[in-house]
């Protein structure tokens, strides 16, 4: 068996996140990659590996155009898993490629256009002929309705009062207000939440991810090489990947249990690989397409008991000043929507100690949860090497 080299995330870069940009996705991706390489002190010529998410990216930004726009010629290139699982789980694929000698510097990039100039955020699902035939005529369309129905089921099992979900959004907006470049830096209070527009009961507008256009990238190489580069060392301690028994067409309606994700399995794997436990974690960055989503993962990962995540969030335990800060940049609800990659780069910045007003003190271990369909990836990063 090959001995796995320890790998590190050595560069992070992002474009602005805006509701609408005129720039092509390839150009946004190229800017993010350039920024990540500059952050690492590397050049396009150093890049010999590329990993992108496997569903949205191939559809809207083909790999050949992406590489050409970025000015990179990766001989190892892969599109991996659907949605946030892809870029949160990507360090595992990069590690395998580096171990095999197929790559030495791997760039991970995600670009997304979510509004009129590219494609609307719902069209991805409308292109599924089964959803178009059996779901859209029934009115079951739009991710808000999919996740609202999970929240309703959660309420049935555990109770969910009208303000229950508010604290996730309020907290995320507060964290975004402390984050340069956040798309929605204005804070929100409970009155503002309760006055906000209902989208799909019980989810209001602040419970829903922003609609954004932008791109983010990060760079992975061996920890050995990372020590010679310019940034504080952030190493990949463990990655877990779990597959739930459903496909993209069936996941939102047919899976037996609507209150669990693959996070229980991917989390256990990641902790085992890292030799760590939930008690060792200093901060968490969980995929938050809707306010209910991180709550389900908190319970799957063992950070809260079943049915307890709502009350613990309301008590402030996952805020920046709480015992386990969550989504410290504001996440998809307030920073910007780019699937899971922004959660990874935020964890890296925290572990470097570069987060200014939103810095988690003495942050050494960060956990990132990336919900995809049908995969879920958990990534554990450590700093202070």
């Amino acid at each position, binding site marked *: 068996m090959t001995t796995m080299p320890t790998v590190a995330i050595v560069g992070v870069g992002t474009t602005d996140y805006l509701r609408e940009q005129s720039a092509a996705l390839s150009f946004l991706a190229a800017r993010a990659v350039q920024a990540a390489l500059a952050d690492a002190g590397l050049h396009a010529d150093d890049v010999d590996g590329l990993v992108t998410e496997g569903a949205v990216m191939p559809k809207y930004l083909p790999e050949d155009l992406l590489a050409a726009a970025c000015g990179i010629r990766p001989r190892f290139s892969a599109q991996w898993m659907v949605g946030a699982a892809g870029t949160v789980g990507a360090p595992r694929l990069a590690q395998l490629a580096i171990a095999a000698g197929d790559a030495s510097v791997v760039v991970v990039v995600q670009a997304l256009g979510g509004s009129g100039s590219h494609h609307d955020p719902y069209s991805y699902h409308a292109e599924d*002929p089964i959803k178009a035939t*059996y779901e859209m005529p*029934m009115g079951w369309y739009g991710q808000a309705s999919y996740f609202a129905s999970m929240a309703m089921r959660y309420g049935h099992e555990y109770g969910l009062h009208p303000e229950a979900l508010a604290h996730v959004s309020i907290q995320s907006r507060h964290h975004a207000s402390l984050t340069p470049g956040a798309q929605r830096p204005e804070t929100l209070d409970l009155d503002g939440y309760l006055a906000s527009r209902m989208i799909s009961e019980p989810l209001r507008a602040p419970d829903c991810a922003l609609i954004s256009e932008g791109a983010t990238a990060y760079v992975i190489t061996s920890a050995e090489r990372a020590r010679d580069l310019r940034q504080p060392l952030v190493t990949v301690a463990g990655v877990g990947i779990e597959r739930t028994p459903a496909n993209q067409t069936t996941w939102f309606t*047919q899976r037996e249990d609507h209150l669990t994700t693959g996070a229980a399995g991917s989390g256990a794997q990641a902790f085992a690989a890292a030799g760590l436990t939930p008690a060792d974690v200093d901060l968490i960055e969980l995929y938050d397409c809707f306010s209910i989503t991180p709550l389900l993962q908190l319970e799957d990962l063992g950070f809260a008991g079943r049915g307890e995540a709502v009350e613990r969030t309301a008590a402030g335990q996952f805020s920046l000043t709480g015992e386990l800060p969550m989504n410290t940049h504001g996440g998809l609800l307030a920073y910007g929507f780019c699937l899971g990659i922004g959660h990874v780069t935020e964890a890296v910045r925290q572990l470097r100690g570069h987060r200014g007003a939103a810095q988690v003190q003495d942050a050494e271990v960060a956990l990132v949860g990336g919900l995809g369909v049908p995969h879920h990836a958990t990534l554990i990063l450590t700093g202070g090497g």
Partner: protein
Amino acid sequence: MHMDLTQAVPHQPPPDGPASPFWLAAREERLTLPRCTDCGAMRWYLFPNCLACGSDSPEIWVGLSGEATLFTWTRVARPFVPAPGPFHVGLLECVGAKGARLVAPLVGEQSPRIGARMQVEFVHLETHSIPVFRQERSNS
């Protein structure tokens, strides 16, 4: 006074018109879902092969009583399909179709209740007819 139920459902026709046996049956006020002729599992959703046994034999569409249990629901306040206004939509577990969940609009005066027994009825639009579900009176 009865509410005009055409105002309580979305107005988006299925893309292939009446091509699917599901929508053809709805026009005749029948509820039907596909079953695998080889292993007997419900083939919902309908893929080219049965996801339970891999069979590619033609499915058989079985008639259902229209009795169902509500698994979960939402009220769509901001519809992303053409609709006269907000509507309720739910996931329904139909009697006689174990393992399949149907999405359909919910109608009625009461707020939907998870676990409630529901019964199908049909709303006829110009282009197509929609199965909708109403909570049964016996347990209201």
